[in-house]
């Protein structure tokens, strides 16, 4: 059994949360540049240039890329030969969240659903766990903004809707989202599982690097078809019209009940902030 001290986890996760707020990933920057080459609308190009400039300012001056620094979402892959010494893993992640959002002057966006009273420290974090083989602990952090999360949906299709029904629903969702989720967006699609599982794998799909092809050829083709249709919608950067409405589409699929075809569309804005932390 390998043991990792509670504090080591907390400190490393805290540092990663801060970095994610200020530094746009290389895949995202490359995505912006590719988009700039393909964009035909002058206004669309202007917006993309602003986003590139925004990322440069954020990195240099350590100002958050976006004022919505999100809810803190964690995906934990915990080896069966690892244990946390000196405390509970969820406590370490929540404490890291609290300290990072406080010390790096990030916005606290967690509140009571009824009273809307802010919890004051951006906790509780949203944490998903997977147990895997081995003695490693892998944590993925993602800061999820509300604007794009609000445009996401889960639906239970009928099996006869098939691939066409899935693709139509995803494209329609992006169409109805219009300028709200800060296009160019990244679209995570979860197919199968159960109602909640579809949503979870759709969110996991958002963690795939922008521009990465799906290893499953059937899903890769579907991603390409959906991306093409989304970019034909004309919404464009900032919703001000243009060719590039989405930077990428990622699909994940799992078996489902013989009676069902669960489908989730999780939209992420271009301010796609995540970090990988290995122990």
């Amino acid at each position: 059994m390998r043991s990792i001290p509670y504090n080591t986890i907390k400190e490393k996760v805290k540092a990663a949360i801060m970095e994610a707020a200020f530094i746009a990933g290389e895949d995202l920057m490359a995505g912006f540049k590719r988009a700039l080459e393909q964009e035909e609308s002058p206004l669309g190009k202007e917006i993309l240039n602003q986003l590139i400039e925004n990322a440069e300012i954020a990195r240099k001056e350590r100002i958050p890329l976006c004022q919505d620094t999100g809810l803190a979402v964690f995906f934990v892959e915990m080896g069966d030969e690892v244990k946390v010494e000196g405390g509970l893993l969820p406590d370490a992640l929540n404490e890291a969240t609290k300290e990072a959002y406080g010390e790096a002057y990030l916005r606290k966006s967690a509140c009571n659903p009824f009273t809307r009273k802010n919890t004051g420290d951006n906790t509780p974090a949203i944490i998903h766990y997977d147990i895997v083989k081995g003695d490693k602990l892998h944590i993925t952090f993602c800061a999820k903004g509300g604007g794009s999360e609000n445009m996401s949906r889960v639906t239970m299709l009928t099996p006869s809707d098939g691939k066409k029904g899935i693709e139509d629903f995803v494209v329609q969702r992006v169409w109805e989202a219009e300028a709200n989720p800060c296009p160019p967006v990244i679209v995570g699609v979860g197919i199968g599982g159960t109602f909640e599982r579809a949503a979870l794998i759709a969110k996991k799909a958002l963690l795939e690097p922008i521009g990465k092809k799906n290893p499953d050829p059937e899903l890769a083709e579907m991603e390409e078809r959906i991306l093409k249709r989304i970019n034909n919608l004309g919404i464009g950067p900032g919703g001000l019209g243009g060719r590039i409405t989405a930077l990428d589409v990622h699909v994940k699929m799992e078996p489902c009940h013989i009676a069902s075809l669960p489908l989730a569309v999780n939209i992420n804005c271009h301010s796609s902030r995540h970090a990988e932390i290995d122990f």
Partner: protein
Amino acid sequence: MTILKPPVKREDVEALEAGDKVLITGTIYTGRDAAHKRLVDLLDGNKPLPFDVDGAIIFYVGPTPSPPGRPIGSAGPTTSYRMDAYAPRLIERGLRGMIGKGPRAAEVKDAMKKYGCVYLGATGGAGALMAQAVKKAEVIAFDDLGPEAVRKLEVENFPVIVINDTKGNDLYIENVKKYKRE
């Protein structure tokens, strides 16, 4: 490029057209849905508002906290439809501009036409860039709302684009049409 210096007159916004690029210099106020709800509650109770709405521009933003030595943190627009339920009440009182992102409801657009107000788009997700145009910030009401408190901002050449003008034009709808392929 048009320059707006609040307080803004009705004729100044009536001269604007959807698609016009505008720079704002002077005082603007921030407010999101929680603050809007309180403003409308004050109006319902016949109580004074924390700032003069007549001629004002409201920026829909919940900035990140200001780090030491800076007037404000990251400060880009939030999604505007959440303010749709409240906006017409402020427009009636002479609000001349709203800065946000995303489309507005028909009732808001109607009020804009009727009373003379424009909806200005700022680039969503470019909060670090936009913060550069903010020179001063001060919480003036609803401090308990934290990031959602009402702030008075001094801005210089704050860049926006007219999405909805007072004639019923909508830049989102018109421009998306140009690039839509069947």
